[in-house]
C-alpha cells in the first residue's frame, strides 16, 4: 500500500522536500504552540482571578 520506497525518498519528496516540510513544519508548529499558549493563558487567568477574589474577600472582611 505504502507509496514510498525508502525513508530517504520520503524526506526528499521528489526534490520538493524543503517546500513540503517547510509547510508541514510550520503547520505542526502552529498547531502545537497555539493550544499551549491558550492553556497557559487560561492558567494565568485562573491564578490571577483567584488572587483577586482572595484580595477582595480580605478587603471586605
Amino acid at each position, binding site marked *: *500500500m*505504502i*507509496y*514510498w520506497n525508502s525513508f530517504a525518498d*520520503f524526506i526528499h*519528496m*521528489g*526534490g*520538493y522536500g524543503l*517546500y*513540503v516540510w*517547510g*509547510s*508541514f513544519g*510550520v*503547520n505542526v508548529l*502552529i*498547531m502545537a504552540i*497555539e*493550544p499551549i499558549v*491558550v*492553556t497557559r*493563558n*487560561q492558567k494565568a*487567568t*485562573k491564578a490571577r*482571578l*483567584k488572587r*483577586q*477574589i482572595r484580595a477582595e474577600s480580605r478587603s471586605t472582611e
Partner: protein
Amino acid sequence: MTDRFNLYKYAAPATFYPLAGKLIPWFAAASVIFGLAGLYLGMLVAPTDFQQGEGYRIIFIHVPASWMSMFIYLVMAFWAAIGLAFNTRLSGMMAQALAPTGALMAFLSLWTGALWGKPMWGAWWVWDARLTSELILLFLYIGYMALTAAIDDPRRADKAGGLLLLVGVVNVPIIYFSVKWWNTLHQGSTVNLTKSSMATTMLYGMLLMALCFWMYSIAVAFMRVRTIMLERERHTDWVKAELEGDAR
C-alpha cells in the same frame, strides 16, 4: 417563550463553560484521529501527481487551512448576527475566541501557498485574485482583533466587533470578485490551478485533513472561550465556585 428561554439558558456562560470543558477532549481526539488518518493517506499512500510531482502534497494542509480561514470568518459573522439580534453574551465571546484561530489559518494558507508557489510558478507570490483576497482576509481578521482589543468594555467590544464582522462579510465577496476581475482584465491569468482529476486517495486524504482542521479549530476555540468567560464573568458566583472547585 419557552423556546427562547431554553436558548438563553443554553447560551448562558454558566452552563456553556462546563459543557465546553467536557467537549474539548472529544474534539481534540477527533482532530488527532482524522489528522493521523489523513496524513497516512496523503503522505504515505497517495501516489504522486503527474503534473506537480511530490510538491502537490502541500495541498493536504494548504486547502484545509484555506477553507477553514474562510469558514471561520463566516462562523464569526454568524455569531455576530446572533449577538446583535438577540443580545446573547455567548456569541461575542465565541467570535472573539475564533478570531485568532481564523487568522492563523489564513496565515497558514498564505505560508503554504507561498511555499507551493515557489516551485510551481517560480515566485513566492503573485498578485492573483485568490491570493490577494486571502491576504485581505487576513487583514480583516487582524482588524477585528485590533478593534476588539482596543475597546475596554467587553460588551461594547462585542457589539462593535460584530458590526465590523457583518460589514466585512458583505465585503468579502465584493473584494473577491473585484480582485478577480482586476486581475483577469490585464492579462490572461498567470495562474491556472490544474483541476486534474484527483486520485480518490488524494481526495479522501484532503477531506480527512479538512475534518482534522475543523475539529482542531473547534477545540481551540472552546479552550479560548472558556478563558474569556472566566475573565468576563469573574464577579459572578459560578466563576467563584468554579475557581474554588479548581483549588481543591
